[in-house]
């Protein structure tokens, strides 16, 4: 910028350019300064821990059949809380962008940072970091609280067991991926209610559609449906008809990337 083109000499710095770092700082400021972010995270953590205590504290291991004992997985059962609370972080992801569209703040955002794919990437990075931290802390807390609540003679899980640490880490990462999928859906649909419906449909209703179908179709489908893939991530004992944990995790990451890429594509093409 020079005086000839604008007729005004800006006093500030003119070298460099806004970019991922500055936009991520804006997005962190935005996420941090609305109450709903922290109330959602608090309810998420409370649900994770209390449902772990509920599930394992009421486990009646002595009454289980031999088959029930053989398949009893004290690690995976500590993550009952993920079933409802994955939606909380998913909604956080949706709200991170749909509230900007409903209020008109998206125009202020895009005026400050016109490269929209960069804005979405910065949003995803900040949201991903916050939800991953919330997910991991809650997963480790739920795991410990659940094992503490589990009564003898039931076998307890410890982090030293093969696969247990992986189960806890992936249990914490899973809701962060749902949040990123929520952000992508929010960028595509733009309306809070519509985007939340789409997210609920994807997570909870899609598996129901497969319920009346033949077992062979169901067994294939559950390898690829997000809420059912969760069972593979958190299991220490291998689950039948599931991809193993890391490929399942890789596939979920791919889903999140596809949702965000579709969101970026839509943001670029539609008027703000």
């Amino acid at each position, binding site marked *: *910028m020079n005086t000839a083109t604008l007729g005004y000499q800006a006093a*500030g710095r003119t070298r460099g350019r806004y970019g991922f770092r500055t936009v991520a700082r804006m997005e962190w400021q935005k996420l941090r300064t609305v109450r709903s972010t922290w109330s959602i995270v608090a309810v998420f953590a409370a649900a994770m821990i209390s449902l772990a205590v509920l599930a394992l504290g009421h486990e009646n291991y002595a009454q289980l059949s031999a088959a029930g004992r053989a398949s009893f997985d004290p690690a995976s059962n500590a993550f009952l809380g993920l079933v409802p609370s994955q939606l909380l972080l998913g909604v956080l992801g949706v709200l991170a962008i749909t509230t900007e569209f409903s209020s*008109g703040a998206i125009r*202020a955002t895009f*005026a400050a940072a*016109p490269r929209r794919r960069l804005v979405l990437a910065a949003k995803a990075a900040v949201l991903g970091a916050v939800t991953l931290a919330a997910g991991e802390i809650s997963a480790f807390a739920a795991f410990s609280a659940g094992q503490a609540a589990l009564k003898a003679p039931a076998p307890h899980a410890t982090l030293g067991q093969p696969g247990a640490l992986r189960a806890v880490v992936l249990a914490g990462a899973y809701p962060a991926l749902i949040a990123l999928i929520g952000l992508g859906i929010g960028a595509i649909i733009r309306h809070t209610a519509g985007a939340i419906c789409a997210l609920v449909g994807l997570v909870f209703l899609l598996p129901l559609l497969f319920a009346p179908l033949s077992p062979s179709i169901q067994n294939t489908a559950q390898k690829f449906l997000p809420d059912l893939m969760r069972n593979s991530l958190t299991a220490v004992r291998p689950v039948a008809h599931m991809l193993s944990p890391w490929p399942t995790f890789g596939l979920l990451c791919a889903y999140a990337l596809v949702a965000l890429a579709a969101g970026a594509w839509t943001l670029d093409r539609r008027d*703000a």
Partner: protein
Amino acid sequence: MIEARGLVKYYRSMLAVDHLSFDVRPGTVTGFLGPNGAGKSTTMRMIMGLDRPDAGQARIGGKSYGDLRWPLREVGALLDAKAFHPGRTARAHLTALAASNAIGRQRVEEVLASTGIEKAADRRAGTFSLGMSQRLGIAAALLGDPGVLLLDEPVNGLDPEGIRWIRTLLRSLAAQGRTVLVSSHLISEMAHTADALVVIGQGRLLAQTTVAQLSARGTSLEGAFFQLTEGATDYSGRL
């Protein structure tokens, strides 16, 4: 300097802006006038790169908006008074915007003070009246101390003191050599603030003129304006 060249915008099949070209020069306040639905806001959104023109282009200091290196330091805009998250405080809203363009926190305090909302800075912006929201929007526009300002109906909702304040502010910004484009549907308001005028109706340019030239055309400035926009008004009531 803002240059609009052959801007065209359709909403579905409705033509909102029709081959619109004009220049906005630095050093004066330029009024952007037209009846309701004339395409003023759409044109401003196209200049800001928010809406994509179906044809033509808009340039700011020779660059399209998307190529600006520090957008908020080069262009400040008030497009929509309520363009903030209602749950965020005024200070948090401005601090977030400032961060995106590496603008210091000190500047946030300066614009809060200069727009007169520092006492309300820690209130959730959703509780603001329209006038307070306008002030917050103007604070955001001034944040980067930009050389170009675009303000869409900035006097809406302001009290008389606020209206006088914004007139003085816009004139002094222009006197510093900045480019200032202010839209309004009130010719009388523009007479107090603007020197240059861009008048549009039904998306077309009706005149690129000055307040002095326009008032010389008719018995009154208002009369001349109605003459100009006659036949280019979409929404009119009957008497």
